[in-house]
């Protein structure tokens, strides 16, 4: 049976039209855009076109605000380190405690280096407290970095409003929009967002290409110094084939934005309802009323995520989990813990993330396959009896903890 891919927040398939657009840049158009001869100038023109395609999807005012990087992580690191380097009198970073590791791990390191990092807490639905946020904005803050949409739950942060509040206090604002770009409309020229990170492979472009949007006039210090590429803001020979691919992917994402927010959303909702109507003791995490159209994160209580994934994989269904075991760490997903999801549920969270390629038949099959897998694992669980969860699960099974 054909495998079903529902892990599009992890990475996506490169669209065939994107592959077709990029292939000539490995062969006949292999030139270095910096060269003066014809081999180079053709590539230069292609990069210019790609830059304008990205600009259009982001609603940026100028194409020179688009800086090509190697990935979302590089864009994130560049943005935050630049804000700190360019403003040596400011030593504080504000972020949230549900960010991607690309931000959180960097911030942990910055703390070791002596910087101050404030991580905004979230409520049970993964929403930040705007009053807490406002209270932290002061002239020691170099940059605020908040994700546009959460990779695990799809929950959307009010980044446009947050950026305005920061701008009013003269503070730079960065958003990691890796999950949002291509899934929700973005119009940067009408916002106060100074920097934005995106990653090609989340929107059907290849891996190894990202973008940092840098508002004109925003003070900047490069991460990589060297050649004059990207106007000296990101040295290193351009990854021309992937840049062309990303440009194409952005154009396609623009065309499919409507479909993503109607048809993909409908399939996601159908999947969610179909599973929850059959499986008890399961719930949607995050804020269902304000999230990406493609993401459903469901916590299955009393069972563990990796075991669910292995059984799903056996029937050809690919998704991911917030359990500790799938990451090799001791703690379940920091996003689930930040929302106060109990351990017995946090370990059993499964993320289904759709793309425009998923079909009705696929969703129907997943709705059919998931309930028996949950039932099979619950049979093995010490928190579960024939009739449902043990009367008082925490008391019925209270192991000696290591």
């Amino acid at each position: 049976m054909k495998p079903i891919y529902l892990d599009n927040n992890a990475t996506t398939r490169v669209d065939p039209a994107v592959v077709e657009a990029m292939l000539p840049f490995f062969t006949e158009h292999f030139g270095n855009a910096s060269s003066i001869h014809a081999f180079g100038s053709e590539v230069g023109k292609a990069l210019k076109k790609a830059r304008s395609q990205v600009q259009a999807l982001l609603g940026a005012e100028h194409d020179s605000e688009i800086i090509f990087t190697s990935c979302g992580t590089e864009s994130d690191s560049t943005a935050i380190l630049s804000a700190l380097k360019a403003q040596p009198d400011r030593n504080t970073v504000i972020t949230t405690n549900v960010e991607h590791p690309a931000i959180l791990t960097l911030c942990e390191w910055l703390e070791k280096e002596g910087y101050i990092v404030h991580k905004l807490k979230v409520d049970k639905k993964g929403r930040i407290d705007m009053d807490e946020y406002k209270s932290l904005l002061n002239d020691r803050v170099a940059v605020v970095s908040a994700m546009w949409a959460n990779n695990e739950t799809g929950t959307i942060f009010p980044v446009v409003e947050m950026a305005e509040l920061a701008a009013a206090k003269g503070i730079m604002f960065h958003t990691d929009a890796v999950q949002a770009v291509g899934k929700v409309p973005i119009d940067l020229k009408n916002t106060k967002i100074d920097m934005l990170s995106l990653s090609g492979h989340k929107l059907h472009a290849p891996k190894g290409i990202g973008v940092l949007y840098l508002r004109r006039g925003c003070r900047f210090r490069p991460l990589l110094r060297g050649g004059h590429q990207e106007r000296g803001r990101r040295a290193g020979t351009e990854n021309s084939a992937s840049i062309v691919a990303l440009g194409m992917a952005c154009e396609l994402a623009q065309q499919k934005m409507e479909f993503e927010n109607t048809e993909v959303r409908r399939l996601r909702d159908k999947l969610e309802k179909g599973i929850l109507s059959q499986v008890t003791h399961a719930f949607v995490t995050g804020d269902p009323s304000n999230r990406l159209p493609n993401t459903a994160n469901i916590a299955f209580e009393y069972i563990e995520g990796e075991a669910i994934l292995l059984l799903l994989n056996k029937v050809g269904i690919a998704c991911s989990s917030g359990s500790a075991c799938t990451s090799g760490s001791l703690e379940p997903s920091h996003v689930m813990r930040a929302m106060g999801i109990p351990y017995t549920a946090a370990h059993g969270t499964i993320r289904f993330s759709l793309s425009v390629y998923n079909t009705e038949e696929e969703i129907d099959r997943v709705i059919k396959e998931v309930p028996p897998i949950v039932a099979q694992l619950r049979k093995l669980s010490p928190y579960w009896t024939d009739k449902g969860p043990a009367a008082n699960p925490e008391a019925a099974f209270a192991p000696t903890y290591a």
Partner: protein
Amino acid sequence: MWEYSDKVREHFFNPRNSGPLEEANGIGDVGSIQCGDALRLMLKVEPETEIILDAHFQTFGCGSAIASSSALTEMVKGMTLDQALEVSNQNIADYLDGLPPEKMHCSVMGREALQAAIANYRGEEWSDDHEEGALICKCFAIDAVMIEDVVKANNLNTVEEVTFYTKAGGGCAACHEGIEEILAKVMAERAGPGEVSPPPACPATPEAPKPPTKKLSIVEKIAKIQEVLESVRPMLQRDHGDVELADVQGKKIYVHLKGACSGCMMEAATLGGIQQKMIETLGELVQVLPSSHMPVEA
């Protein structure tokens, strides 16, 4: 994803002896829900012979936790309680043709459940003496708690010493930053407030041996050499290895590395560590060499 052995996959997809065991007379509940694993082991023990007639499990956990539980129930059936107490977590992992380093704690949980269930049958109190920390060295599955304990107990100062005592950091070396952080933390505690000094990035050069108060006789010297070897043997045996003295020729001490130690990628580090201890104990510069380096007798 993990590289699970076929045996792990087989036990996960077709777990043996799962579900409650009505006639159980020894039950062990252990685990760590933070790590996403918890296990109830149920034993049916024949009182006269103390033979385990049946064993069942219920597990909240990942693929390898379920597979380890299933394997454990198969292994202990038919054993006496005393035999069952001899089952180590390594035995469980071996039964499954190995577990990924990140997953070794699943086998540890199995062994603890077994001890807890036997204690429960015997009416004893079982307490867990094992604390688990974040995994630092993935090559040898060594966690932060273990490294910190060893650093404290042995007054270690360098990554190289940590590698000798725990193996952590002896493989791909990606965890050296993590080990340095633990060293810095412990050394800061040791130094007390206000005297924080970073750990030396390079291994410290061994201190010049103190001149011996009196010259050791050859018998005294060999006794001391044996003493040093005895002190490192438990550590090597834990990893299925061993060492014994082959010969002493002047300043050269030849040893046989046995079991898992022979041909191990860590051989040089093991010998280096033993040599360091020899130098400290004997108070003179000596060289510790594998027996394969012994000069062939004429």
